[in-house]
């Protein structure tokens, strides 16, 4: 699925009056390592996810809190390699039922070889990439290769970003705009800043692509609340935790309770 097709797929969901819900899973975490990847992606698609954010483990994930950090370490202990993730994705009998967006740090990409990495993304059905430690000042390192392979480079906006930066990020983002909704790392939060609604609405107004809120979104109430200001949410740590605790039913409930029909609001 190309960068444009990713955006279109998300828009199609929105056009049906449904907010977006993108769960994050760590590739190679859990029983069977990467061999469970296809099952998990199919499960999430059936549960109502709009796309899946697939984490590639990295030894030093400075933007992540303990839950995802530990999932990464479990995955590495399972022997997960970048190549094994690509191989697992390529073994899908037909293409993935929902768009797959990679999330990883810049070093594994750099080490794999930037051109080779994005070529492999394209042949593995990956349609977008989120790189939390690649600000726009450094994105030229990967952006030409993303473009050549039609992989959406999803930009992240932060609550600390200045107005000028936010507007530049909104202009540049591909696929969707990732609105980091906390000042901090990934992980569950009891509450969000009081001005979160203004921040998300501002992004929504200036962005030409869908805006999703992520980081610190841990339950359906928060998902609905944040989703009311933008196009939907990304939920990471809670999904990772529930998979680890083998509580798939709760994942299903979380997705279904979070994805609200706009017409019913």
């Amino acid at each position, binding site marked *: 699925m190309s960068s444009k097709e990713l955006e279109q797929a998300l828009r199609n969901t929105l056009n049906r009056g449904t907010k977006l819900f993108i769960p994050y899973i760590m590739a190679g975490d859990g029983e069977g390592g990467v061999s469970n990847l296809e099952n998990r992606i199919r499960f999430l698609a059936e549960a109502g996810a709009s796309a899946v954010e697939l984490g590639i483990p990295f*030894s030093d994930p400075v933007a992540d*809190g303990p839950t995802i950090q530990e999932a990464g370490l479990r995955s590495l202990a399972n022997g997960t390699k970048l190549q094994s993730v690509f191989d697992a994705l390529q073994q899908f009998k037909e293409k993935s039922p929902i768009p797959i967006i990679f999330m990883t740090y810049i*070093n594994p990409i750099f*080490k*794999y070889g930037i051109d080779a990495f994005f070529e492999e993304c394209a042949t593995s059905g990956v349609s977008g990439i989120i790189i*939390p430690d690649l600000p726009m000042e450094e994105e030229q390192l990967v952006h030409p290769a993303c473009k050549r392979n039609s992989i959406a480079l999803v930009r992240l906006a932060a609550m*600390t970003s200045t107005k000028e930066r936010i507007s530049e990020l909104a202009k540049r983002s591909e696929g969707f705009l990732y609105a980091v909704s906390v000042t901090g*790392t990934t992980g569950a939060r009891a509450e969000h800043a009081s001005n979160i609604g203004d921040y998300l609405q501002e992004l929504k107004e200036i962005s030409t692509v869908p805006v999703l809120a992520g980081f610190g979104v841990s339950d359906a109430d928060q998902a609905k609340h944040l989703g009311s200001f933008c196009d939907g949410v990304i939920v990471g740590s809670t999904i990772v935790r529930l998979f680890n605790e083998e509580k798939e039913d709760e994942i299903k409930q979380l997705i279904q309770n979070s994805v609200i029909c706009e017409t019913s609001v």
Partner: protein
Amino acid sequence: MTTYTNPDKTGRYGTFGGRFVPELLMPALIELEKAYEDAVADPAFKEELNKYLAEYVGRETPLFHAKNLSEQLGGPDIYLKREDLNHTGAHKINNALGQALLTLRMGKKKVVAETGAGQHGVATATACALLGLECVIFMGDEDIRRQKLNVFRMELLGAKVHGVSSGSATLKDAVNEAMRYWVSNVEDTHYILGTAAGPHPFPYIVRELQAVIGTEAKKQIIEQTGKLPDAVVACLGGGSNAIGMFYPFIDDSSVKIYGVEAGGHGIETNEHAATLVAGETGILHGTLTRLLQDDDGQIREAVSISAGLDYPGIGPEHSHLQEIGRVQYDSITDEEALEAFQLLSQTEGIIPALESSHAVAFTLKLAKKMKKGETIVVCLSGRGDKDVEQVKARLEGK
């Protein structure tokens, strides 16, 4: 002759450097860059810093002619730049104090820092106590075990010390946690990064604050010998004392410059911290540099007897200086460093930090290839009080 002018506006030293950090931190890095530019342009900042350096830190530090050691080796004259005589016992205070003053200029009241051997943590806690800043320090559990005395010193100085149990529980992991803490508290907190690594402008600011070492050493050696040295030597983990010593000599082409990494159990064992000698190009802790990594881009754990050197990355400027061939980098094993630790203690009555012992050990080898009448200036980056317990246990075979 071209003059060395790195970094450029994007924080690049040749192909190395840059700013690979979450968007959340970008405004803080831009603010820091601006604050430093303003500070440098403000004579009052320089005056205040220099006053503290002279009256509180005890600068300038002596350049000591190590006659006994020189005579024993029978070759060049060896001079020690005594950063170990600084207040708090290492070069780290030069940077910590400068950045603590910057913290105040930015209107921030809190500081976070990481520490390996504890010297940077102690220096930061000291500067914070002096200037009335709140201080949080992250330190790997393994380093806490190795450096109990420094943990106590930090706490005594009013800092909160958090142990880090992830990864190798050493400096790399402490940097990760300090960065996470900074990401979460960036609005009122400055991260006093302890070495010349990390995202721009840290490598630049740390170099500028540590260049006092080389500037003084250059003036002092000329005063004492009437000429530039033939060689300068410093140890490096992240590389702050080394870049501070090297920078003022970069344009002096007659001066050979040597950086000494921790060879741990030996380069061939893969258990070492010799990033430049045996590493590869990659991106860690916000900067594109040489580092220790596996085939999949996962960062490898560094190994060294010296808690301050076992870092799998290196300041980007060192990667550049290696690439352009201006500085030669080599490594020294744990055993060689331990021998030098004892030798310097016995010949000159100076107990060096294990970090600095690497530089001394390399100097012993270098001296054999040099002639009488030539001179070597070695940066003695810190004193060894913090290491005596660990060395005692090692020598007694525990």
